């Protein structure tokens, strides 16, 4: 295999892992944040029970994505985390607190841990928004090392993306809750859902429109063929799914299936982002070919890790089948 093809294969694998993470764990993060919203006690319990056995396996996709990024593109891992020190820290604290507080809650049943679990979910999502915003806006690099300041990531684009992601995950979480058989739909649930969706959409669209200003690469992407065409098609698809989503919400039909529609919107947005940056992996400076580790390493990883990924996937499905919808009994 040529080094070019290897880098492309690994880029595709990592994108897939990250997409799986966003789609699978996004709902959990959203539900976690929802637990902070005032609501009756029994609904909070439904929320906590909803995580049950799956969320650990879901979060694994994030760790796999991060670790394979380091293996296949060491330059990305080191430069991006160096540059995005504070976002990475916020994200890390969120994840750490989330794991620990969930387990402490299960063991002790104390409300403090349930509250901290919600806070941790929020922190993790905000951290993701910061990371994504900083990463997309561009990192200044000189001589193969980070060459900027500690607050370079704090831009309007980052703020808008973070807002969009927080509300986007809330939508994912809310629709997932509705998806559970035992969840009772409160009268104003759909109203809340629609407003969260509108906020998320506005913030993400505004962020995307500001992008060419932050990073000239995107201006090319939006005007030069063929990437422009692909992006237009993806945007049209997103618009169609959004319309279906809005129709179902307004007519209150198929509400339990809204979860799949919102996952589709996230997945399409993710694809759009990849088309928008490829072949850059640290836009607008470093391509996947420049950041790749040695071909020997990428081949070794492909043989070692490649076969495991489908197994993990099948396994995730198996667990999901054993524990179906509503979460376990202890």
């Amino acid at each position, binding site marked *: 295999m040529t080094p070019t093809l290897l880098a492309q294969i690994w880029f595709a694998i990592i994108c897939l892992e990250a997409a799986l993470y966003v789609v699978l764990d996004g709902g959990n993060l959203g539900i976690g944040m929802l637990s902070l919203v005032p609501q009756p006690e029994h609904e909070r319990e439904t929320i906590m029970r909803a995580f049950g056995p799956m969320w650990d396996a879901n979060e694994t996709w994030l*760790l796999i994505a991060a670790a394979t990024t*380091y293996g296949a593109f060491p330059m990305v891992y080191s430069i991006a985390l160096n540059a995005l020190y504070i976002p990475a820290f916020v994200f890390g604290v969120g994840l750490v607190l989330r794991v620990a507080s969930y387990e402490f809650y299960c063991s002790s049943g104390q409300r403090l841990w349930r509250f901290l679990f919600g806070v941790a979910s929020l922190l993790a999502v905000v951290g993701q928004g910061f990371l994504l915003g900083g990463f997309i806006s561009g990192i200044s690099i000189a001589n193969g090392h980070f060459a900027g300041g500690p607050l370079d990531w704090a831009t309007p684009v980052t703020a808008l993306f973070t807002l969009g992601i927080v509300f986007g995950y809330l939508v994912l979480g809310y629709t997932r809750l509705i998806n559970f058989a035992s969840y009772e739909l409160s009268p104003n649930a759909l109203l809340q859902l629609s407003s969260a969706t509108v906020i998320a959409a506005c913030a993400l669209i505004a962020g995307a429109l500001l992008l060419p200003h932050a990073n000239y690469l995107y201006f090319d992407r939006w005007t030069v063929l063929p990437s422009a065409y692909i992006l237009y098609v993806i945007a049209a698809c997103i618009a169609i799914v959004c319309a279906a989503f809005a129709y179902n919400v307004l007519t209150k039909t198929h509400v339990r299936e809204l979860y799949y529609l919102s996952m589709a919107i996230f997945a399409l947005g993710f694809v759009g982002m990849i088309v928008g940056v490829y072949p850059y992996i640290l836009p607008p400076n470093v391509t996947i070919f420049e950041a790749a580790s040695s071909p020997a390493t990428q081949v070794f990883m492909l043989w070692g890790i490649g076969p495991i990924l489908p197994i993990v996937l099948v396994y995730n499905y198996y*667990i999901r089948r054993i524990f179906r919808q509503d979460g376990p009994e202890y």
Partner: protein
Amino acid sequence: MSPLILSRIQFGDTAAFHILWPVMSIGIALYMVVMESMWLYTKEESYYRQLRFWTKIFVLTFAIGTASGLPLSLEFGTNWSQFAQAAGDFMGNILGFETTIAFALESAFLAILIFGWKRVHPLMHLFSTFMVFIGASISAFWIMVANSWMQVPEGITVQNGLIVVTNYSQAIFNPDSVVSFMHMMGACVESSLFLIGGIAAWQLLTTEAGPVRDFFRQTLVYCLAIALFVAPLQVVIGDMSGLVVAQYQPEKLAALELQWDTNAPGEGAAWDVVAWPNSTNNGNAFAVSIPNGLSLLTTHSMEGTVQGLNDFQASDRPSEMEAVITFYGFRLMMVIGFLLVALALWSIVLWWKGGLSSERIARHRAWLRCWVASIPLGFIATEAGWMVREIGRQPWTVYHLMRTADSVSIGLTSYEVGTTTLVVTAAYLVFAGVFIYLSYRIVRSGPDLVSPLP
């Protein structure tokens, strides 16, 4: 303080805290695998009760282990970006293996282990418990591979400032990796057994005669049966591990023995029981020594040559302060290793005399107190051993290839690193406190001996 020093404190701090939990997870998981196998094999209810009870504590250790390990992998990028980049060809790959193969395995099977009691076949459940243990052990294997390669980097070449792997089997099975992995696994099992046994001994001291006391008597006896093999074995593996250091890291050996001058041919090097460097840092101000001891320990011959610190440039070997820490860390680990062997032997003598029967076991109060006192010992030894290993490697991150000072991230401010260190440390202290509180509650409320079997 500089970002470099603060980053070292942060990594040391987070790593020292993190290592406690995998040690418990792996050790307790092994205990669980043994209990579940025995239960399915003998159909004896008591094994099932043991399994269910210790699973509660296992779950806590596993969660804190996962949580506290996350910042470590982030820190490679955030605080040690130059190292992450230069050594990424190997380190990234190996950490990728660790996460994908091992971590994915254990966290996935954990779901069945915890929630699957009524949903899967008992053999599938045993298999899940086993896979959680195997997953955690493979995880430890890859972490030890990564770390041992930093100690003895083989199978690589340097191109344009990047370390590139030329031979994976040499890099993975470097002279240090297998023996270090075994030493670490020994530490996991031994520390956990004395933790479990110690908790049981504490309950034997404080509970009335009855089914609960019998439960903890069984725990202690099972632990003892495994500890008998593990404790002496760990001393032997430790010695093997020392031989690797002597051969491949003579600077580290000289530092952890505070050996300043190379012994002359025909004369053995003495082993210092206690020592302290002099003010000019080229010899010891005082030392209490056993003649020929060091030669015997590290070369297994009376007059083997042991290089001294003065043979190396001061900038290429651990500093005096670092040497003192490794010197006493090593001795602490060794003393604990022998103390635990002694306690295991004492226990076997009691067992032999029939002193561990349910009527008589609670009468041996001094012996039970020793078990209680041994609860933290394995963990202290593990920490001390890691300090010897990591501080003794200084001033290098990758031995003789990359210096710690050249590994740190670019453009960090002390303010950033200081803040993150404080937050993470505070969070970890809270986790430790909550863990102790919750496990205290679990142990105090005792095992569930009545619920129906699955």
